[in-house]
């Protein structure tokens, strides 16, 4: 890379900052948890997982922690995705394909609206934080 000018440096910082924020645990207030047991993966949870990450990247959202977990027990409606957003009920969505994954990012995370057709359950009381 050639020598930077002031504006180059600022641009570079903005870019890299976004990349670094993704791994910073302290600024995460919302969580998307994808069930990735054998049942989930067989039903396409990996595609869902990738779609969610891609959509978050595309929208420049960094405050959401995306993680995977084991089977949630709802094998009939895999892939399942649990979404935890402050001041909203904790929800488990069922049958979340890649497109619905993107919808979760846009509707639930950005617009703070639940997605009617896919709500499957709310987590059992003992695992609600």
């Amino acid at each position, binding site marked *: 890379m050639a020598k930077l000018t002031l504006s180059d440096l600022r641009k570079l*910082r903005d870019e890299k900052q976004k990349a670094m924020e993704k791994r*910073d645990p302290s600024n995460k207030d919302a969580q998307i948890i994808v069930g990735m047991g054998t049942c989930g993966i067989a039903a396409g949870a990996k595609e869902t997982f990738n779609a969610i990450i891609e959509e978050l990247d595309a929208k420049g959202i960094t405050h959401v922690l995306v993680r995977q977990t084991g089977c949630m027990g709802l094998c009939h409606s895999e892939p399942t995705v649990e979404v935890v957003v402050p001041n909203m009920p904790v929800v488990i969505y069922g049958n979340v394909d890649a497109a619905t994954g993107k919808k979760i990012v846009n509707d639930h995370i950005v617009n703070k609206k639940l997605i009617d057709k896919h709500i499957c359950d709310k987590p059992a009381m003992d695992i609600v934080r």
Partner: protein
Amino acid sequence: MGYKQYILVCGGTACESNQGIALFSALKKAVEEHGLVNDVQVVRTGCLGFCEKGPIVKVLPQDTFYVEVKPEDAEVLIKEHIIKGRVVSRLLYDKNQSKLNVGIEGIDFYQKQFRIVLRNCGVIDPDKIDEYIARDGYKALEKALFEMKPQDVIDEVSKSGLRGRGGAGFPTGKKWSFAAVQPAGQKYMVCNADEGDPGAYMDRSTLEGDPHSVLEAMIIAGYAIGADKGYVYIRAEYPLAIQRLETAIAQATEYGLLGEDILGSGFSFTIEIRLGAGAFVCGEETALLASIEGKRGMPTPRPPFPAVKGLWGRPTVINNVETLANIPVVLLKGGAWFSKIGTATSKGTKVFALTGKINNSGLIEVPMGTTLREIIFDIGGGIRGGKAFKAAQTGGPSGGMIPPQFLDTPIDYENLSKIGSIMGSGGLIVMDEDDCIPDIAKFYLDFTVDESCGKCAPCRIGGRKLLNYLIKICNGEGSYEDIDNMKEISEAMARASLCGLGQTASNPVQSSLRYFMDEYKEHIDAKKCRAGKCKNLLCYSIITPKCVGCTACARVCPVNAIAGERKQPHVIDAAKCIKCGQCFEVCKFHAVARS
């Protein structure tokens, strides 16, 4: 498509020497084998501070904190944590946790810490300038070059109350302004990375974990005082720090953050590394400058101070690594913000290398004014093996021994000197009941006698004399006259030595005579060493009724001083015994007595 998970592996010297490099490669290999190269990034970072439990691995963004990870654990970590999303409990610091997000919040070690200097250590990859830039790196430089005049920079640093972290605690802003007011012309900015106290590794870890923070500060300092040339004086015994520094300088030069016309501001600055041969005295600023000039590392009297007449006779500012690492934060957050942290006279934080008889040895950063008790018992996890705390030594061989009655003294420059020690560069060695105070004083004097350059008589002769008296006392041949002589020599050395090395070399003696006179008395009167460290005062014997005749002691004795039939009580021949203590260690029946 970005990475989904990040595995941070500690790349500090402590962890690397503990199979950390093999672990890093094993993790990378496992990631490749499982086809996760595009999903998981393995990052090697600087020291995470928790050296006691190294190698440390942190998985982000879940913030899972694994300790004592071995290369053979890599496969399990990838398979379980990364692929299946299940935490590997046996590698957690608290083995009872099972949730994925058990981060540093759950570990007492990090609770009382406040990280300014170590802000990026263990967070970024020190070999990647982009990661430093992402963490507001070179933003303070931007601010200084385009929004501030050199005098504004100095004012801001003065306002922060930042004082030199190398030991003496001279106000940094004042030092800069002395050099700044010198007539324009060739000036130099030097970074003192000649860390030499036994047990101290703060500066090494800072350079290893975040080299750019020091480079950025040097450029800013150069701008403030009107210097266009900088040197980092670092000891050749720090190969990893040197390598990361070289990489950092090359990257900053490539980006135009070093060199001609930085960021188009018209200001130019270059940095060169100068390697020292590891002489303790070269940490003293005038000796350091002599060494850079290619001369023997010997101090010269001050004044003239280096800020007026330094390197090659030109005005030179010398700052310690830790002092410099504070500078970018001072400029970005403001001197007023910085001055709110700490005590009335000592602002900001201090990094300590916590070592000795402590459970969690490691690298910590605490606000000034934190007490020794908080550092040793809350962060350090107390004394190893539940033994009793005897003393803490700050400031390495230049500091004093701090007895238990001062555990609750808030640590700052003034308080430490009041109780006979110094802040020093940040080594903190904890001693327990098994340490003999005259023996420790002897160890430090041995070090300073070795490291004295020999130029001035008080240090060269006084140090040797002090050491001889201590050897006499530890051999049980000391007298009260020796103690009086030691006190007199100590005072003379402190007053008449040419540089800091000689002036402070007697601190371990003076402080221990002040607080632990009873132990000296025991050595002189009763010829007794309560810690069992002074070999000449020890006598090993076998308690006949307890001895079952297992022959374990006789087999381990290197000089065949123990005799006895099988299943019959043994006897130690005191004339042959070399007091190595191996029989004492090996006896399962507590039948060997040490007195």
